[in-house]
């Protein structure tokens, strides 16, 4: 019923948000798949990623993809953050956010009663998970910088516990990103209008 009263001509997602969202999606796919091929060259754990889901063909190729897409990820992420803060959208969309609201939404989700009828309003779970994934992307970039240039960024290296610790941080931040993407895709499948909104803006 609520859907009917929403003015369908109102823009839910501005152009800059949609553009940065899809560029980020492309960068994340390239970074993740090439990253898996790089991981396979010297696995941290007792498993490898299947070659069919990796990018680059061999280590050198994967590194070329990884170190090309990193510019897209970082530059696009910076534009996103600047626009988000500059327009005040980050405050309007993501706050207020309380642990109590997150728990309430989480319980509602398990009962199948979590609502996302008005696409202009993020529920507490969305706010929390989007803020989480932004922080996770920042952590991926910072730990990636330590792996790429561990000598040139001594402060960052020591903050992350050294080169080897940074490898672990980078890996688990990747795992968190992949987990987010999987839930994100499942939620989009449940509320397909959100996909439409992210493409045409309303």
């Amino acid at each position, binding site marked *: 019923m609520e859907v009917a009263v929403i003015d369908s001509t109102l823009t839910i997602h501005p152009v800059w948000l949609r553009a940065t969202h899809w560029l980020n999606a492309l960068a994340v796919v390239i970074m993740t798949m090439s990253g898996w091929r790089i991981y396979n060259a010297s696995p941290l754990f007792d498993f490898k990623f299947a070659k069919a889901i990796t990018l680059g063909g061999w280590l*050198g190729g994967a590194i070329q993809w990884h170190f090309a897409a990193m510019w897209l990820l970082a530059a696009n992420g910076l534009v996103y953050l600047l626009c988000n803060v500059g327009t005040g959208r980050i405050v309007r969309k993501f706050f207020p956010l309380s642990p109590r609201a997150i728990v309430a939404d989480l319980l509602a989700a398990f009962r199948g009663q979590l609502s996302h009828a008005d696409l202009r309003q993020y529920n507490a779970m969305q706010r929390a998970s989007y803020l989480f994934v932004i922080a996770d992307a920042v952590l991926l970039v910072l730990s990636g910088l330590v792996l790429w240039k561990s000598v040139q960024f001594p402060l960052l290296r020591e903050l992350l516990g050294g080169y080897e610790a940074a490898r672990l941080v980078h890996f688990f931040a990747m795992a968190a990103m992949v987990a987010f993407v999987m839930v994100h895709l499942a939620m989009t499948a449940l509320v397909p209008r959100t996909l439409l909104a992210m493409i045409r803006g309303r």
Partner: protein
Amino acid sequence: MMKKFPRLVAIDGDAVVKEALRRIEQPSRRMFLQRSLTLGGLSLLTGCAIVDEDSVEHALMKVSRFNDKVQGWLFDPKQLAPTYPESMITRPFPFNAYYGEDEIRKVDADSYRLEITGMVTDKHAWTLPELRALPQTNQVTRHICVEGWSAIGKWGGVNFASFLSRVGADTSAKYIGFKCADDYYTSIDMPTALHPQTLLTLSYDGQPLPPRYGFPMKLRMPTKLGYKNPKHINAIFVTNTYPGGYWEDQGYNWFGGS
């Protein structure tokens, strides 16, 4: 021509048809690959070797050259790589090369000569005793491999910057190239060559450099990835002409700094 013709007839007919079909199929297959790329099809990216697509490979190489420049700009000649206590040395220190351990080159110590050429004033070839007579220093640093793993080792030898000044190297040159007894070759930038931790290495863990770590001499740079640290060095040359490298020519990033 006349001789060849009867031989062709003798060829298995099915095989000829198959070969012809294969040749017809190839261009269409190539067109399909090109189209799926222009469509931005991520499907092409999956598990594909980059060598499949010349234009993609070319673009990635260009970004890699750009990344060389960024790394040269980021490189702080005074920023030291961390050093570690000897108790943290990785034992055994891993062997790594483009060949297996059974193919480690044996270099004869007595006949060994280190050639110095290019933009230097003193081009005399160095013997091993001559190199060992120079002032020596030690470092315990982390070796980081392009594959991701790292190991801590202890290397000893001659500060490379002081060696370069001893042979009268023109330090305004862009590159220093290395040719090795195991047919490996690589090259580095001048700022890294002059970095205080760059070491013309003659010993490992207090012993003469063993063959597996590059006897009689390797270049050790804790500011660069493993493949930039050549072993069994025969010749060093100072140049303004880009010398490339064994892995670099195949697609590894040239600067390869950490």
